Each structure stands twice: as C-alpha cells, then as structure tokens.
C-alpha cells in the first residue's frame, strides 16, 4: 500500500506542475481534472471513502466544468509567457503559501494515531464507516455550522443569479391564450 501512496502523491505533484507548464489552457484544465482524481484516490487510500467520492462528484463533475467554461470565456488562443519577473513574484507567493500550509498541517496533525505502536490502536476498534461518522458528528454536534453552510449556499445561488442574469431584457415567452385567440384570415 505504501507504493500506491507514493505513486499517487508523485503523480499528483507531477500533474499540478503540468497545469501551469502546459501551453494550451484546455490541456491544463484536463491536467487539473486528473489531479483532482488523484487527490480523490489518495483520500480513498486514507479510508475516507465518502469524502473521496464526494470530491470526485463535486470537483470533477462541477468545479472542473466551471474551469472549462472560464477558459472558453476568456478567449485565449495561446498565451506565451515571456516575462521573467512575474515568474519570480509568483514563485515567491507560491513559496509563502506552501510555508503557511506546511506549518498549519504540522501544527494540526502533530500526532497520528496510525503511528501508535501500541497493540490497542485506534483502528482496531473503529468499525464505523466514514459516512456514518460524518453524519453522526455533523448532524448531532455541528448543527449550527451545517445551517450556516446552507445559508452560504443560498447566498451563492442568489449571488450567481444576480451577477449573470440580465433582468432588463424581456422574456420572449408566448402568451398561450393570445396565441390561441389569434384569428387567421
């Protein structure tokens, strides 16, 4: 199993670097989709099945489509990147972001129960599925967070409608009674 972890982690890093190294934006979006799939497979290997499949459904099924629409709307044919200075700035920003994530992850996950060598480890007692654990914790203890997430979804929905819909244009729907009452000479 160690081999599979290493394989999928390295292919994830490789695909993430391909996302910005490839010239064609559509190809970079395809690499991004493959990177999402690899991340979902790593989650499956970590035995969080529901989260892995939810990642696949949300990121590959929906977010990647949004990325594809973005790429198609931007109307870039092929962008040749020739400024060395912006490479420097972006790599600096990326390094800062990497450092932040690294420190945060090592602060949060300083103790792995899996690494515990004692015989009565965490996983021998654990017979609940990922989905059951998540449901019982989320809907019994974190009800307020769940309701706030519903409100966030509502705000996202209304915001996207307000931003994109053209309210001024009249809808060209037929009034069916007027249509039926028309007299043809």
């Amino acid at each position: 199993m160690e081999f599979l972890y290493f394989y999928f982690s390295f292919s994830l890093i490789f695909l993430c670097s391909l996302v910005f190294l490839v010239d064609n934006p559509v190809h970079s979006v395809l690499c991004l989709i493959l990177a999402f799939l690899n991340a979902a497979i790593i989650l499956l290997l970590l035995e969080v099945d529901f989260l892995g499949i939810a990642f696949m459904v949300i990121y590959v099924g929906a977010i990647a489509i949004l990325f594809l629409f973005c790429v198609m709307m931007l109307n870039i044919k092929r962008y040749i990147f020739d400024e060395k200075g912006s490479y420097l700035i972006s790599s600096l920003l990326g390094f800062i972001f990497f450092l932040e994530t690294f420190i945060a992850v090592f602060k949060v996950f300083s103790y792995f129960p899996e690494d515990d060598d004692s015989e009565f480890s965490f996983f021998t007692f654990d017979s609940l599925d990922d989905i059951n654990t998540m449901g019982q914790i989320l809907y019994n203890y974190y009800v307020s967070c769940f309701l706030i997430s519903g409100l966030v979804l509502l705000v996202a929905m209304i915001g996207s409608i307000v931003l994109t819909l053209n309210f001024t244009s009249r809808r060209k729907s037929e009034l069916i009674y007027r249509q039926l009452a028309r007299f043809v000479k």
Partner: protein
Amino acid sequence: MFLTDSNEFLKVGIFFIVTVIIALLIISLSLRVGAGTPDTEKLSAYECGFDPYEDARNHFDVRFYLVAMLFIVFDLEAIFFFPWCASFSYLSPEGFFSMIDFTIELLIGYIYAWMVGALEWS
C-alpha cells in the same frame, strides 16, 4: 478499506487496470493496423465544404455558466443529504429538523430562481 483484510477496492482496481489496457490496446491497434494515408484534404478542417472563416473558440452566453453554478449548489445539497440518510437512526430531533431547515433554505433559493426566470431559456 485497504488496511482491513476484506479488500473491497480490489474489484475497482481490476476494473481500472482492464480499462487502461483496453484503451491502450484500441489506440495502439488503430495506429498500427489502420491504413494511414493522410493528404491535405483529409487533414484540413471541414466545415460544410468551405474554409472555416471563424475561430472555433468564440464567446458564448454567460447563462451556460449560470446553469453550471446552480448545478453545483444543488449538487452540494445532495452531498449533504447522504450522511444524513446513512446515520438517520442515530440522529437527535435537532439533527432531523436541521436538515428540514436546510432544505427550506435551498427551496427559497429555488423559488427565487424560478420566479426571476434564471432557469428559463428565452
């Protein structure tokens, strides 16, 4: 699931390997066996007999994007439903009615989208 002795994802792994093999087989066989005789007429872009006078990638309506975004919202709602259904018998009444409230919140959004005409394609 990999760490336990019942290896449930082995079937998925077998499917994955078989699909990769079949895809590689189809591509390599069509490259190897197929009689490739390319010429200029075959390789040029075909658009009803005349030369294409427009780029294939052009602007399109932002409403496609709106439909995709509404899809994401309802997709996430469906994802929230699954753990609720799976652990239904272990939930407190608060947990049960929180999902009812969540559905009502999204119903408000749905009614708004319907009334405004975001789902209509004029």
